């Protein structure tokens, strides 16, 4: 049977049918709301860059709530008696500590300790895990499962219709929908709720650094679920948001993005143009108490020697975003010490923020960014002083409160 996501590929009168993107289970609703027809793609799915206005969507995330379609996000079921051992050898964190109906953030590396991807692991049951990540990972999972007798890896990407509901009113919306018990979910908890004869899975997870949930439903129920969610959210400013607003929110939260902060190791051609968790300031994800996991020896060596570069959060003077800036140790820009990976003017923090890859040895000294900008086609540049920030730019108390506030 044809999958509903392949609908654009099934039109026999279309000479380009085989080249068409897939569509999300929520496409019928999203296409109505995508007033600007601002489509791009993600993992072969037609995917909104934005729906109406990037800044509007961003402010919904921060002030009301919004939904982000995570149907194209890759989802893999890892099942069987060896599932935990197989995953635990693959990721750098110790999953023995993960309890049923809990989620954890993980990273996995090559033998040489270079980051392949990051993602989340959901413990759905004793021998049943769900791994989610941004890019296809099946080949690596198959390699990782080789040699384990009782583990099955299934690509379950299209087995769920999933939405990320993020923002301070997100809890209120779910309450309004009548999800009894959702109040008790702590960050990284998973809950299950009946919905139209099926089950709605709710995880208190997200990619915005704010209060939020990810909602997982049987694809058959995708549209009724959307309708119920949007009906409940009508009074709470619910609005779909796309890739651009996500990218703003995640930068404020200090989260890394593939092809911004890191180049996936298995797709990196140039030697060591990929990164290690230590270089990405994710050393806390690497648990050396675990006797073995992939890349352990290489990562231990890097930990002992210290990484040569490290991803650093910067506050930059002025209000010109330091996108693609080169960093220097002096105002005269005579010695390069790094480069900016992501930058923006943060409306919620009211600061000029950036993530930057900087030589570890240069972190103690001054940091200056050479910023290029234009004003009505005239190009200018300025050199701005940067200061290091250790905490996430945006990390409100409401994101952690249980039960969450109704705002």
């Amino acid at each position, binding site marked *: 049977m044809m999958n509903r996501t392949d609908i654009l590929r099934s039109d026999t009168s279309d000479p380009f049918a085989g080249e068409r993107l897939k569509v999300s289970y929520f496409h019928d609703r999203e296409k109505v709301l995508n007033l600007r027809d601002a489509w791009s793609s993600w993992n072969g799915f037609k995917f909104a860059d934005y729906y109406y206005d990037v800044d509007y969507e961003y402010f919904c995330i921060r002030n009301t709530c919004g939904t982000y379609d995570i149907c194209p996000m890759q989802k893999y079921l890892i099942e069987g008696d060896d599932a935990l051992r197989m995953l635990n050898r693959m990721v750098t964190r110790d999953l023995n500590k993960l309890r049923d109906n809990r989620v954890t953030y993980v990273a996995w590396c*090559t*033998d040489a300790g270079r980051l392949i991807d990051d993602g989340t692991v959901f413990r759905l049951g004793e021998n049943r895990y769900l791994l989610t990540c941004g890019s296809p990972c099946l080949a690596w999972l198959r*390699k990782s499962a080789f*040699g*384990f007798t009782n583990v099955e890896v299934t690509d379950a990407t299209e087995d769920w219709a999933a939405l990320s509901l993020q923002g301070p009113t997100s809890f209120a919306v779910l309450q309004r929908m009548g999800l009894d018990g959702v109040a008790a979910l702590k960050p990284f908890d998973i809950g299950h709720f009946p919905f139209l004869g099926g089950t709605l899975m709710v995880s208190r997870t997200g990619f915005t650094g704010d209060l939020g949930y990810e909602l997982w439903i049987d694809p058959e129920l995708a549209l009724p679920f959307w309708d119920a969610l949007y009906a409940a959210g009508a009074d709470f400013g619910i609005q779909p948001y796309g890739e651009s607003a996500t990218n703003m929110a995640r930068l404020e939260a200090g989260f890394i993005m593939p092809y911004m902060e890191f180049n996936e190791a298995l797709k990196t051609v140039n030697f060591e143009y990929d990164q290690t968790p230590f270089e990405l300031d994710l050393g806390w994800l690497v648990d050396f*108490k675990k*006797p*073995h996991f*992939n890349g352990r020896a290489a990562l231990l060596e890097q930990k002992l020697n210290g990484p040569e570069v490290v991803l650093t959060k910067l506050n930059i003077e002025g209000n010109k975003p330091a996108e693609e800036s080169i960093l220097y140790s002096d105002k005269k820009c005579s010695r390069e010490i790094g480069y900016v990976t992501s930058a923006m003017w943060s409306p919620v923090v009211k600061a000029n923020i950036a993530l930057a890859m900087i030589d570890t040895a240069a972190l103690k000294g001054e940091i200056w960014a050479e910023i290029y900008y234009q004003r009505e086609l005239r190009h200018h540049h300025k050199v701005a002083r940067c200061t290091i920030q250790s905490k996430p730019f945006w990390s409100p108390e409401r994101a952690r409160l249980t039960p969450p506030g109704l705002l």
Partner: protein
Amino acid sequence: MADQDTIIIGGGHNGLVCAILLARAGQRVTLLEACPTLGGMAAEREFHPGFKAALAQTLYAMPRSLIRDLDLASHGLEFGPEPLPLRPLSLSAPPQSINGESLAGAADGDAEAYLKYVTMLKKFAAALAPFWERTMPRVGATGLPDLLTFGKLGLKLRLLGKDDMLEFFRVATLPMRDLLDEHFSDDGLKAALCWDALVGSQLAPRSPNQAVLTLLNRMAGKDAGQHVIPKDGMPGLVRALESAAVQAGVTIRTDCSVKTVQIEGDESGQHCTGVELESGETLLSDRVVSSADPQTTFLKLIGAQHLEIEFTNRISRLRNRGYVARVNLALSALPTFQGLDSPHGRLIVAPTMDSIEFAWDAAKYEELPASPVMEVLVPSLQAPGLAPEGQHVLVANVMYVPYDLKSGWTPGSRDELLNTVLRELERYAPGIQELVLASELLTPQDLASQYRVTNGHWHHCEPAIDQLLMMRPTYEAAQYATPIPGLYLCGAGCHPAGDVSGNPGRNAAKEILA
């Protein structure tokens, strides 16, 4: 506390060599062999009452220096008076015989060409010889020993002189067919000369890759690659190694099959703590040296969960399909081969290089060869103890026989192969079938189960460019140490490769003692 400094898994010649050298250096060594007898593929087997054979039936690749260093002569190792000639069989042409640097019965020009050819190969073999006897450098390593090894290899080749060096680079990865067509005219001679470069590997005369290097490796042995049979057959070598091991203080346990290599882990990482036997007994040791093939060692005895993912993938992808079957015959009398006064030496049944190529073509597609090519030997001529008086043992290494047969290995397909081999032998030795008292066929699958070697490969894994030198069996395990502290390899799956050379066992011991 551990009862020994080192446990060695496998009592084949490499395990024994490694055990002797470690014990002589003062280590308490326990060697574990799964079979009732030592020797691995060189172990003697009685395949019919009173008739014995070993899979490795001759010695050719073991360096003189190793025989001397282990003082095997004083442990009873003796050789017959002369190496075995290599003799291409022919139904029409006069018999030819290759013996070291001489070629008898050759067509016009071939004898002269042969001298030139063998002189060139010997020169190359001598230049490369030292590298079979040392640990290969780690790629990317900048330590002095690694750089010295690289430097010495370069210097050795340069010292050949410019012309010979360039010629070496030209022929090193040439298909045997191109090399032999360039030098010789007689078809039977060419087929016989390529045998030693191809046997045991996934190569035919037209295959480029490592055939010439394999030949040069084999020529680094004590008689420049000529085959000899120890006075008591290969068991003579095994007994000498066993005697040397016992004298050095090695504890030898046979019938002692290892189930797992024990790996423990804590905050300091993983390390090897010993082995668990099939019997359930646990032996403790901080160092375990495995002479089993790499897939057996890493995937069966250790398990992927203790290894890195890309490393595991490379081990699981090793090319290690065996393509040689063995036929052992118990004969009531000495057979007579057409044109030969005696079946002395290694007789090559392969009229042309194409006949070898066609046999390979069938095997590639998992079919039996219509006309198998083979190397035939009557070892009881040199080692009379292998058969009752007046009777003989004939062994044939038959190529190419696939590990997996498309139609499946059944009693019917086994009979078909055995009958084809016997019919082929009958053509060259009329009446031989009437002398057969008993026969035994060992397919690559039989070799796999009999000798506990994955896919029945003679050399544990294919000795090809991608799996040789610092790539053998794969990087990160190519210097005998492995990614798991305390675990070492010392078998044919290590540099320099298979055959009964003892070099992997000796190199591993040197590396452990360094």
